[in-house]
């Protein structure tokens, strides 16, 4: 089985991309939040419970520059989501076998 880097760029409170990503991801997969997808990393938001209960299933990453742009640098993100920069994004693409963007 190829290890997949799932990329989600949609806000969890606008689109349903996360539902499908969570349904289709398998245990060894990684999930990277970029663009409006970074809102899913906010610890106090209602959607956090959906992420929290999957922290043991998948490796979660969030793109730091998108976090900062949206003013989320001063609030708590979910523990267990690793913040990466664009170089980290590139590394994740290289480390996994294939990428799937849940547009």
């Amino acid at each position, binding site marked *: 089985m190829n290890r997949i880097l799932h990329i989600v760029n949609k806000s969890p409170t606008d689109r349903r991309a996360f539902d499908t990503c969570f349904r289709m991801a398998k245990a060894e997969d990684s999930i990277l939040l970029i663009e409006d997808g970074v809102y899913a990393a906010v610890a106090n938001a209602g959607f956090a419970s959906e992420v929290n209960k999957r922290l043991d299933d998948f490796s979660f990453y969030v793109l730091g*520059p998108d976090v900062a742009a949206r003013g989320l640098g001063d609030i708590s993100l979910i523990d267990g989501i690793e913040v990466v920069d664009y170089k980290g994004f590139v590394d994740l693409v290289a480390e996994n076998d294939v*990428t799937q*963007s849940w547009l």
Partner: protein
Amino acid sequence: MKFSILIKQGPFTHQASDSAYHFTVAALASGHEIFRVFFYNDGVYNSNRLSEPQTDDRNLVSLWSKLAAEHEIDLVVCIAAAQRRGVKEEILEQGFRISGLGQLVEAGIEADRTIVFGD
């Protein structure tokens, strides 16, 4: 490693082209090769040289063009998507070329990784 990039949105309206640009810059900085950047759907608008953003905003058309010149990146605009949207040779920025969809499939075959940016 060799990467191919697919961009499905134009500049400004969605962040897709911005994200793809920063990803590409970072990939090059990490020593990876960019086999091709393919512009499909509204992504074809990224090649419109008439684009003139406000002076305090970024200009993705020229950013892509300059990056391509510096690193010899192949920027391919899909002819079918471009024709219906009115992106023609006469308004094409330097560094972009218009070609067929087969170039996207070839990019997927030749690269080690294909990454899709869109909405």
